[in-house]
């Protein structure tokens, strides 16, 4: 009988340690890496658009055209395409992180977390959407 309890003790302690050790979310799947590299490549094109105010960070974790007049008329189509492509990637990223961790229902929470962190980390001069509308950081 004693050895049974001992076994229960050891197994439980191990799994308790495992459960509490999960302080990190899984973000290193091939799908997530692919989305990340697509986003960092696009960032080279987006960076000047953030800086000019053409594009801003929304409070829901996506991007929006903030001031289309900041880019020449001829390039507006490209501007919209860039924003749409980035928003597709971002939605996929939030969804993939949730599924990679076995909780597809977390996608909304992950989106909210990212929304806050994108805005917090945005450099000065970029446009971000807060509770009282657009503001320049």
């Amino acid at each position, binding site marked *: 009988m004693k050895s049974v309890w*001992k076994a*229960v003790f050891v197994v439980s302690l191990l799994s*308790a340690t495992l459960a509490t050790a999960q302080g990190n*979310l899984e*973000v290193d799947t091939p799908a997530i890496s692919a989305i*990340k590299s697509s986003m*960092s490549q696009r960032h080279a094109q987006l960076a000047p658009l953030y800086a000019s105010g053409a594009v801003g960070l929304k409070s829901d974790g996506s991007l929006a055209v903030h001031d289309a007049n900041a880019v020449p008329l001829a390039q507006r189509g490209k501007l919209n395409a860039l924003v749409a492509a980035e928003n597709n990637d971002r939605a996929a990223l939030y969804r993939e992180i949730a599924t990679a961790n076995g909780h597809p229902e*977390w996608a909304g929470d992950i989106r909210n*977390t990212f929304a806050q962190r994108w805005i917090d980390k945005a450099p000065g001069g970029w446009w971000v959407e807060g509770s009282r509308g657009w503001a320049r950081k």
Partner: protein
Amino acid sequence: MKPVSNWAAVTAFSLAIAGCVTINIYFPAAAAEKAADRIIDEVWQLKPEAATKEGAPSR
């Protein structure tokens, strides 16, 4: 090794169960924030990648 009392076993067992329940029900906000910071740093190339790996203080 010292014999393990029933109480120790029961305590460890409850701890394990509690751990599982916590992990499975609640959204790990702190872990999500850490993951977000890592990914944003990579996408925006804010820091050299090595520095953002493990245990980088969030500020």
